[in-house]
């Protein structure tokens, strides 16, 4: 398993890439509520995801939940944009493991050609799902928590997204930049990998 600085998990042997919590449509949700958040995050996210798929040559993309933020975020423009993007990766199989935000948003556009699963996908020794609950006999890769780690030095305080690799569950950082996060609570035996720009650093 490789932890990529683009906020993705890569499993080269299986030709697989996993990301969690893109929350697409969040910007649009905010705008609909009268909060002027500028559009632009989506393009960056899509570009980053494309570069990961191309660089790894992955045949399968797993989306570990909260693909969309809310029902009202599914504007016609967003739906169209994602359908277009999907077509540029027509050869890649995309599987969505539904998360709480997905459930609230209702059925997703068929133009996105996603294989939508309700629960989890078991593959090899791993289970891929949205909620980080341990499963006997498998190592779980999940999302939902948007893990962040606090680092402080003289006067400076940083909060960086990170991979929280526990003994039974590994939590991926939220894929999109426009998401809040939760500080990790580290227990003995757990490892944290912070994302600082172009590198992944264990802290």
């Amino acid at each position, binding site marked *: 398993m490789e932890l990529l600085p683009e906020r993705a998990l890569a499993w080269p042997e299986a030709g697989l890439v996993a990301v969690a919590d893109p929350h697409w449509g969040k*910007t*649009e*949700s*905010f*705008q*609909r*509520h*009268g*909060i*002027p*958040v*500028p*559009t*632009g*995050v989506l393009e960056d996210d899509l570009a980053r995801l494309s570069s990961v798929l191309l660089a790894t040559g992955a045949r399968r993309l797993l989306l570990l939940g909260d693909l969309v*933020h*809310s029902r009202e975020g599914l*504007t016609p*423009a967003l739906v169209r944009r994602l359908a277009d993007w999907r077509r540029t990766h027509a050869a890649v199989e995309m599987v969505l493991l539904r998360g709480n935000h997905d459930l609230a948003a209702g059925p997703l556009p068929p133009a996105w050609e996603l294989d939508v699963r309700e629960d989890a996908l078991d593959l090899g020794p791993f289970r891929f799902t949205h909620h980080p609950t341990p499963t006997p006999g498998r190592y779980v890769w999940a999302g939902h928590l948007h893990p962040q780690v*606090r680092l402080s030095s*003289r*006067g400076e305080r940083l909060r960086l997204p990170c991979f929280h690799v526990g003994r039974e569950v590994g939590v991926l950082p939220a894929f999109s*930049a*426009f*998401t*809040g996060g939760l500080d990790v609570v580290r227990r003995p035996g757990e490892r944290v990998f912070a994302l600082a720009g172009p590198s992944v650093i264990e802290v």
Partner: protein
Amino acid sequence: MPARRPRSLRAQLQAARRAARPAPSTGPRRRAPRPRRPPAPPSAGTPMQRLRGWFASKGWTPFPFQEEAWAAYARGDSGLIHVPTGAGKTHAAYIAPLAEVAEHGREGLQILYVTPLRAVSRDVERALVEPLDLLGGDLAVESRTGDTAAAVRQRQRESLPEVLITTPESLSVMLSNERAPALFSSLRAVIVDEWHELLGTKRGTQTELALARLRRFAPGVRTWALSATLANLEEAARHAVGTGAAPTLVGADLERPVEVETLLPEAVDTFPWAGHLGYAMLSRVAARLDPRESTLVFTNTRAQAERWFEGLRFARPEWGPLLALHHGSIDRDERERVERGLKDGTVRLVVCTSSLDLGVDFGPVERVVQVGSPKGIGRTLQRAGRSAHRPGATSRLLFVPTHALELVEMAAAREALALREVEPRTPPPRPLDVLAQHLVTCALGGGFTRESLRDEVRTAAAYARLTDAEFDQALTLVTEGGPTLRAYPEFRRVVEHGGRFVVTDARVARLHRLNIGTIASDAAVELRYWRGGARLGSVEESYVSRLRPGDTFLFAGRTLELARLQGLTAYVRPARAKATSTPRWAGGRLPLSTSLATAMRRTLEQARQGDVTSDELAAAWPVLEAQARLSRIPGQEAVLAETCQTRDGHHLFLYPFEGRGVHEGLAALLALRLTRLQKATFALSVNDYGLELLTPTPFPFEEALRPALFTREHLAEDVDESVNVGELAKRRFRDIARVAGLVLPGLPGARKSTRQVQASASLLHDVFQRYEPHHPLLAQARREVLEQHFEEARLVRALERLEQGPLEFVHARRPTPLGFPLVVERISASLSNESLLERVERLKERWTRDDARSA
């Protein structure tokens, strides 16, 4: 008389709770259960005559300034009344409008009383209700704040009482009601209390815009502001009454004499550093205080209040519940308990912060103690005025220095007090975020057209010079979202319908009102007991986030242990062990004011000339003498600069005496400009008196400090380059984002509905920075850093002074008494408290030895 409706369960519960509480509620008065008052017989005289009679019955004779104010009101004037606390300001502004209301008896709201207090004081309510009895008729007084019950609010949307007490925020919420034009059309008078408090802040700006709107709805309305003494009274008056009228100033030379005593320390350390007199002074204060005299002990920060309360309790355990603590983060119920105790005499000594500066009228206290320099003359006068409320009696204040140099500050303050050199309060210049919020309020409250609202906004003095482009910028912000086309395709807030700007989305409306209704403050984490969940108060998120479960801290006089932090609530348990820390609240440190800084430079000049007759200077003499021996005592003509070399490196100390805000900007600016002359890295340190630049390698300071270094040209760009303006701007942006409606408060009731659109200001800032870097709100944040954090106007004056020179340059053997606190400040920034103490002791030891050897 409205018919008696069956009470809902909620109303019954509220009534039960109200009955259990001793204090009167803020709910409606004089509705349903009261019998109808017979109309007063005409032979009793006009309302004004009857009110005069009421005055007489209380043994009061109207002051000349009250007569003047009543006459001015009758003439149709608006204006400002400036007299000290307790001298009868409220009646000066209230009696004439009240008489008019009783005489003409129009329906609907006629007198609006605006106060900055978050929780409207019951004393204000009582003062306004009292005279209604003798006037007959059916006049009612209600209040409307963030705490007002939903049922009452609902009714107030349809009809208002004749007299309403409210806050600037609640006034804005009421203006966002589409019935606002009708509800306010009967208004005769608006009274704004504590105007000096509102004036220098965005709440004041918000009030000005609201007042401009009220003048549109009720063209004949008169505005009267009540204020303490300020240096810029005329400007303050103009901002209150708007550009449409020439304000009448009503004042009185009722300033009571202020008697100041400084508690002198027994021994003065020649190495003063912040707080080092600490517990030595505390025990002397404990010995001086007497529970037979009601006393307020003011401290400058909440943390200091906690520590002094703890210290006094430890020193005098026999005082028991007679001693109490009061500050802004303590739970409201507890604060009210303390206030009631002060009134009925069950609480005799209160350690407090500025939390007891406003509004609470518990009668005169017999003694006022000020721990540490009050940092301003206006504030000192106000606090001294808490003692001996009766007009004419002397106010007494006891100063307690917390370090030796504060003695000099206090000597200066004493002189400035005698000369009444109070500070001005400067209104913020045309803030965009406040205007944007107001535009949405107006769109909701009846709608507006571009030209007419623009003209209306310009009648508020704060926006008198608003350009068309600036207005349009604000309008674009609320209609489009931002300056970049197509960057906000789904944005919906204010929409245009045939030339009229309105809000059509119910959700946008609800969120807007929710947001105005709270006052911007730092993210507060609630403190609750783990068992039982009782609320203790709040601390700032920045403090609690650094604690781990098990850590202990002092709060509200209790030692608590953090059990668990969950979202915005911290659960705590009583701890047995001694507290390892006291919470720090970021807003604590006010810089030295302009008036006090000027006075201090004057006092130092006197000391320099050898005039040390005042008690404080005499007590501080060992420090001043050491300063004179090692270097010079700073004078008024030139700014003192010292260089010296230690094991830490090469130091430059500069003492402009302009307050830490200015010095922060100045230090960074100088460091940048010096590195342009010669490559170097500087460590910076600042305090209210001056700044320090430290570099590991030799630097030609004396040569480099030429007038050209202090040029005002390229100030903004240089400050931008030199300081982590980004980080400071991010913090400013948080407040701006709240006001402009970008970030919604995490209120418990609203959380569920706003969950989808909760985002931290920090996150939003990053998104803006990345995708909309020219956003006007980002620009506002950067500008505010310069204008307010670094006090630009003052910084410019400091540069002028430095540029015109001359500088007095001294090379010292080692850091002087003036420089020492800066050294300590620098060290303390990087070490924990314990090692700081040790380190300081070691330094002192070394220097005392060196001193003795060379003497």
